[in-house]
């Protein structure tokens, strides 16, 4: 028995040593927090699998989370110094203090400046004009979709380019009335979604010194329309009235179920609609409704950023360079049906991978909106604390539409809310 005992003990010890020692060259593991509107998670995983094959010394773990986690959990993790190495985010300016400047780590910083030039500012801290912090791998634009089939069934003419918000509201109401559709117009419950139409009405959002000055005549013109539309049934209370504070609520499900005539949301819905609606009815992206000042939506989108808390900046930069490369951006856009922000890719155009003509048409309609965006919309999107503005707006207008406060009270409260938040943000030891 003794030799067998000795052999088995020896073998166990050797196995244990091997297990603790691990492979001679362990791969560096990087973590990336990711959310998806459609199939972006699958596509990025597929792209990263290819990257890992080319770079066996780097492994990227993608933590797929809900969008709410990106907005609420990620900032707390970063504040505690416990964040991931990289993440897909939308609060581009708000998290700027946590970003890793990729400039010293990437092979060709000029490529980044040329490819993402107009968007790099969105990631920078105030005063910073040179840092490279993220890949704008998704450009989004807010804008309207309509259920064209409902217009046809109701025999109502679709308003033409240049039509005002009031003309669109009248047309949507006519369709809804004729076909008994519950929501003539639905606008996502989001300050960002409200901003485009408000700018069209003449809202400036900033004063001459560049400080936030939200409530003006243009803002009031759109806010009073929102109130009126809720009162007369043009907009249903389920969206803006059914939750509190700055909570986001979309009407994508209702639109996909043909309960909405006109849905003001954005280009990121296209992939979802292609999958959910397909060609069950004709869903069409139409021109931006106009106000006296403009016919604009808001730009936005998602970016992938690296965080300065990473212990592996070189490896992170390698992954970021790969994800920012032209072929990868092209493939990512083509497979996820999202508009590319990469200047070179946008110029060449993307052959979007879908058989659904409605999706292709919608993508080209939104591409057409890009050149017509108001400069105020760009400035607002680039403002680091734009979510403070958006949250104050949506929170107070939400109270207005359910009758908790008047518009005048909201006009008084919104600047106070913004001022209090910015003052807290500025308070340092």
């Amino acid at each position, binding site marked *: 028995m003794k030799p067998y005992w000795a052999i088995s003990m020896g073998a166990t010890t050797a196995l244990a040593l091997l297990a603790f020692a691990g492979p001679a060259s362990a791969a560096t593991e990087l973590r990336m927090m990711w959310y998806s509107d459609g199939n972006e998670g699958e596509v990025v995983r597929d792209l990263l699998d290819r990257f890992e094959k080319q770079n066996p010394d780097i492994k990227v773990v993608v933590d797929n989370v809900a969008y709410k986690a990106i*907005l*609420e*959990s990620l*900032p*707390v993790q970063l*504040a*505690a110094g416990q964040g991931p190495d990289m993440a897909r985010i939308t*609060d581009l300016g*708000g998290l700027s203090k946590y970003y890793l400047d990729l400039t010293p780590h990437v092979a060709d910083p000029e490529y980044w400046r040329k490819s993402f030039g107009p968007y790099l500012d969105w990631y920078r801290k105030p005063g910073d004009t040179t840092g490279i912090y993220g890949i704008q791998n998704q450009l989004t634009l807010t804008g309207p979709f309509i259920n064209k089939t409902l217009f046809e069934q109701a025999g109502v003419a679709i308003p033409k380019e240049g039509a005002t918000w009031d003309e669109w509201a009248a047309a949507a109401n006519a369709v809804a009335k004729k076909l008994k559709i*519950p929501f003539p117009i639905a606008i996502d419950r989001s300050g960002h979604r409200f901003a485009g139409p408000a700018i069209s009405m003449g809202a400036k959002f900033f004063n001459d010194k560049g400080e936030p000055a939200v409530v003006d005549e243009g803002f009031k013109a759109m806010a009073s329309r929102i109130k009126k539309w809720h009162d007369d049934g043009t907009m*249903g*209370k*389920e969206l803006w*009235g*059914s*939750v*509190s*504070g*700055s*909570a986001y*609520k979309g009407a994508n499900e209702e639109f996909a179920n043909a309960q909405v005539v006109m849905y003001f949301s954005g280009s990121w819905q296209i992939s979802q609609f292609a999958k959910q609606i397909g060609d069950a009815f004709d869903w069409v992206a139409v021109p931006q409704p106009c106000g006296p000042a403009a016919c604009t939506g808001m730009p936005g989108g998602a970016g992938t950023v690296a965080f300065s808390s990473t212990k592996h900046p070189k490896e992170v930069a390698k992954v970021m360079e790969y994800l920012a490369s032209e072929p990868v951006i092209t493939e990512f856009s083509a497979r996820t049906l999202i508009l590319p922000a990469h200047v070179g890719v946008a110029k060449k155009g993307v052959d979007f991978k879908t058989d659904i003509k409605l999706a292709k048409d919608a993508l080209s309609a939104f591409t057409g909106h890009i050149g017509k965006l108001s400069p105020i919309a760009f400035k607002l999107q680039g403002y680091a*604390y734009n*979510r*403070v503005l958006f*949250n104050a707006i949506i929170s107070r207008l*939400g*109270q207005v*539409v*359910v*009758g*908790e*406060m008047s518009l005048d*009270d909201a006009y008084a*409260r919104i600047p106070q809310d913004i001022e209090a*938040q*910015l003052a*807290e*943000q500025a*308070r*340092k*030891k």
Partner: protein
Amino acid sequence: MESLLQLPWAIAMRALEYPMRGIQRLIGERRMPYVFVLPNLLIFGTFVVVPLFINFFYSVTGGTSLFPDQRPFVGAEQYGYLLDCEDYLKPFSCREDQFWRGIYNTITFVSFQVTAMVALSLLTAIVLNRRIAARGFFRSVFFYPVLLSPVVVALVWKWILQREGVLNAFLTALGGDGIVFLAEPQWAMFWAIFVSTWAHMGFYTLILLAGLQSIPRDLYEAAEMDGTSHWRTFRRITLPLLWPTMLVVLVLSLIKSVQTFDEVFVLTGGGPGTATQLIVQYIYSTAFATQVHNFGLAAAAAIVLGSVLLVLTLLQMRLGSGKDKD
């Protein structure tokens, strides 16, 4: 077989015996109880007392940094901000009106929810204590919602109550008009109270049922022999003897009700407007759901909430000790 199963237990006990004897020799027999409560005290200290002090520290500091050393001291400023009101009965006259809306909503929610909870639990316990058909089945039925996750409970009721939900389908089938329950302030508060009561009633019913079963049967038999009416029996025997259990139920449901968050948050999101935004949701939103995380203000609100709960608990202890003396 039984002795074999007890073997590990016996070994563990024997292993503990010698160190415990040593400790007893060292500190004396009278101090030994402290050794036994020490593990619990450590857990309580780590997860309750220390966070309480940290929370207090945050409430007297400002800024958005999470690290204590980077937070400037602001004294009672956060409390002053919360309590700055022209008229405390009008939330809109307060500087931080959302906090006061949360307070008033919580008072409404707690008043109705606790009353409904205690009354319905008592009624259900009394019925389930009788010899009715399928008693075991009904006891399970009333307890079952307690086993469900609050998020599941809220989602199920959300589907029932939405515009195209089961309840509206039922109403329209009867010829009525559908109601968008969760978009109407009064209806939303009603359903928040209803769902929360439905979800937790089983737990309190169980406690009251145990209380009812501990009342000696011979008291009821004596009352029956004296020809006492059911109502008088309930008032003179059941209620007084059930009072200590009722007090536990009252205090537990009160504290739980003040702390309500998850069900209402998933069901109504605090809306419409702020009609169902309770104080705990206000604290959460202020700390985490805004771009500027105002941990200090949220911590101050949490301290205010904690103080209210402390007063309620002290009140319960006083009431309980008064009854014991009787």
